[in-house]
């Protein structure tokens, strides 16, 4: 009964979406307030329907209702409860349902938090969001319904969740990533509405900013969690593989970052407007491309699961509808947008424009590397793959000037910048920084390390300027810490986050150690200053797997540091064996052991890593996310205050 309710709620939601997409637009056209006010009600109703549908699927999973095909394919009665719940988004159908349910949530938030916007604008925004929802709901109902039953003979138990997905990463990574993807739909809807009304003012940017910042913060968190998951589970000791699916989440992030910044300029300086709208459209389109690439199976990647061609075609059609129609609208309306204000070639505007272009260029190179194999395959020239060396080769030269700008731009004045005071204030700091950046890695490694020096220099530069910027002249020749707004605090945190992340990337790449060994019980190997001694093996039974657990004692300079327990698990239902790495995580370094294969009863191959500063990569990501959220709160408060002032007048 419950799956049928879920299915029914889904169809109802589709009906509501159709009304929400069409009626408010007619209302705006005919100036009918009843029809306009319908938009908000529809949004709440649709969100409720989607929530009911999602809850029904969750119930089917948690009650082990294996008569539902999707549950039978992705769950098992022995699966721990938390994974039974998360198995909802473990495969195609459920993750689409999650996508559209989150869209319902964002829609609710827009309807609720936009009391101060003109009703017509809200109606149009909700109508655009409803059109997106129609596309996804059609996709679910027509091609990938998660509520399909296997009747009358239903299986007694399920096929179990893919073992790779049985990790805490599954709990948080997909929902956060989707929150970000879907959140960009709000920025997209704001942009389309602005194009429809031909109204791009600072006010429009002020409305859009908190939404975009929130979506960007979620996407950042999603990407970071995904990277940490890959590090833990894939057992290659890496944290980013330039896998097409990783790229699919990284491209909207790059454009989203550009969007967040160009919105600041649009809001404060009333310029960059057409560009901002284009970025908003691109960010959402790339989110859709991301969903398409992951779910259509056109790409060969670790994420490619079994796929169905019909779905791919449907997503492709939907994707082209969205992109083509929004770009056409942009092409017709954008020339009417004029930026009244001009600025000098050296000003905060121009530097931010440079950063925006660099971010866009980064996105385009990633996009090229990701779809190049598809194009070549489609043209029947051959089959090939683009490896990580390509991405590293093109990415580093683009990201280096970007980081320089990141440290510099906040110091320069709007409109008409002057580099002299900046140079006079920072030159001594800069000199010390350069000396430290050259000397420290040289002293540590014994040879000059060019890459590390550049990395230290860039991140030191960002941290230095971001913090020193907060000390301003007090008028008496000295300097005091200025009181900072939430907005400024958010920016400071996010920028320091970037620097921390860069430090983590550079240091972990440069000073990682790894060894592949075959060990018998009693053997001991050394890696850097650490010794690893294999004490023995133990059998362990998990809820849905058997594990062979190795006990490795780790010594640091001869003293016992810890015992690592890497496992080789065999999942009983799928007969799939997977290693479970053991990580001794620390602020400054990780020790990481992963089991390979047994050579005989007592001898195993294994891989041992020493990964310095690897946690800093994700810590930096968390700082960025935190900064984004704080800035979002700051910006929306400020917008509210401004409105109250306006009303008071």
């Amino acid at each position: 009964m419950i799956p049928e309710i879920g299915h029914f709620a889904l169809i109802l939601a589709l009906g509501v979406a159709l009304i929400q997409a069409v009626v408010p637009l007619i209302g705006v056209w005919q100036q009918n307030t009843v029809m306009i006010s319908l938009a908000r009600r529809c949004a709440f109703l649709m969100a409720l329907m989607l929530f009911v549908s999602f809850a029904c699927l969750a119930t089917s999973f948690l009650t082990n209702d294996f008569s539902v095909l999707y549950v039978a394919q992705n769950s098992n009665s022995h699966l721990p409860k938390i994974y039974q719940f998360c198995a909802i988004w473990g495969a195609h159908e459920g993750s689409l349902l999650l996508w559209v349910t989150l869209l319902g949530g964002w829609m609710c938030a827009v309807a609720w938090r936009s009391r101060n916007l003109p009703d017509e604008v809200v109606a149009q925004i909700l109508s655009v969001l409803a059109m997106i929802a129609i596309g996804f709901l059609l996709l679910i109902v027509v091609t990938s319904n998660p509520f399909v039953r296997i009747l009358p003979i239903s299986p007694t138990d399920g096929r179990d969740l893919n073992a790779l997905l049985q990790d805490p990463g599954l709990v948080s990574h997909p929902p956060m990533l989707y929150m970000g993807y879907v959140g960009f739909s709000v920025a997209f809807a704001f942009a389309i509405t602005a194009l429809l009304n031909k109204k791009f003012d600072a006010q429009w940017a002020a409305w859009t900013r908190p939404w975009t910042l929130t979506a960007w913060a979620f996407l950042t968190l999603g990407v970071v969690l995904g990277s940490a998951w890959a590090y833990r589970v894939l057992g290659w000791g890496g944290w980013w593989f330039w896998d097409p699916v990783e790229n699919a989440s990284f491209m909207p992030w790059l454009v989203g970052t550009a969007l967040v910044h160009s919105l600041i300029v649009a809001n404060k300086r009333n310029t960059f407007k057409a560009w901002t709208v284009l970025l908003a459209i691109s960010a959402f389109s790339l989110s859709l491309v991301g969903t398409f690439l992951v779910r259509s199976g056109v790409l060969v990647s670790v994420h490619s699961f079994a796929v169905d061609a019909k779905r791919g075609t449907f997503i492709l059609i939907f994707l082209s509808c969205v992109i083509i129609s929004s770009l056409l609208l942009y092409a017709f309306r954008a020339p009417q947008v004029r930026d009244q204000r001009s600025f000098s070639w050296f000003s905060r505007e121009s530097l931010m424009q440079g950063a925006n272009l660099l971010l866009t260029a980064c996105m385009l190179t990633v996009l090229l590397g990701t779809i190049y194999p598809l194009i070549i395959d489609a043209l029947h020239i051959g089959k090939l793959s683009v490896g990580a060396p390509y991405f590293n080769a093109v990415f580093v030269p683009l990201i280096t000037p970007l980081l320089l700008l990141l440290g510099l731009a906040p110091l320069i004045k709007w409109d008409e910048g002057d580099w002299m005071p900046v140079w006079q204030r920072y030159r001594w700091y800069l000199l010390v920084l350069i000396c430290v950046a050259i000397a420290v890695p040289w002293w540590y490694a014994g040879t000059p390390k060019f890459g590390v020096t550049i990395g230290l220099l860039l991140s030191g530069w960002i941290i230095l300027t971001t913090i020193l910027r907060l000390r301003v002249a007090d008028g008496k020749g000295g300097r005091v810490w200025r009181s900072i707004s939430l907005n400024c605090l958010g920016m400071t945190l996010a920028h320091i986050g970037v620097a921390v992340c860069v430090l983590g990337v550079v240091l972990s790449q440069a000073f990682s150690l790894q060894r592949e060994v075959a060990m018998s019980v009693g053997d001991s190997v050394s890696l850097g200053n650490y010794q690893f001694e294999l004490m023995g093996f133990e059998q362990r039974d998990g809820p849905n797997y058997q594990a062979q657990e190795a006990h490795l004692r780790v010594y640091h300079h001869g003293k016992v540091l810890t015992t690592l327990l890497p496992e080789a698990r065999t999942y009983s239902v799928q007969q799939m064996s997977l290693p479970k790495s053991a990580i001794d995580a620390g602020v400054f370094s990780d020790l990481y052991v992963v089991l390979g294969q047994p050579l005989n009863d007592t001898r195993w191959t294994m891989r041992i890593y020493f990964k310095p500063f690897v946690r800093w990569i994700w810590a930096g990501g968390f700082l960025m996310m935190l900064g984004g959220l704080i800035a979002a709160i700051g910006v929306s408060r400020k917008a509210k205050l401004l409105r109250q002032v306006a009303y008071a007048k």
Partner: protein
Amino acid sequence: MNAVRKRRLKVILLIMLSITIAVTLVLYALRSNINLYFTPSQVDITTMKKLVQFRMGGMVVDGSVHRDQNGLDVQFQLTDYKRNIAVKYHGLLPALFREGQGIVVQGHLDQDGKFVATQVLAKHDERYMPPEVVKKHDT
């Protein structure tokens, strides 16, 4: 030509120039970092240039996996049901590597026509088979 137009022209030329440089560099980076993909029967041992990196996908032949004493040197046969090619690899195999399993190896051919793999990729789906091999298997 007035001053505004002159400035505009300069800006446009500058943009064109930088785009050209960027595209050239990117295409150059792309050219030297792509890996062509073949199945064993498409690999021509006699004519294929030695020491050129490429990727090869196929199924691991049952009973063909041989490890040496220290366990890190492995040899096995890769097949697309038309032709087998011997693969040598030094290092840890991925956990999902098994006989009869579809995998992708990256590396080059040596003088004897054996494939020296620098990387072995196993799919995270135990029912996976490279698409080209599926076609050959079915026909």
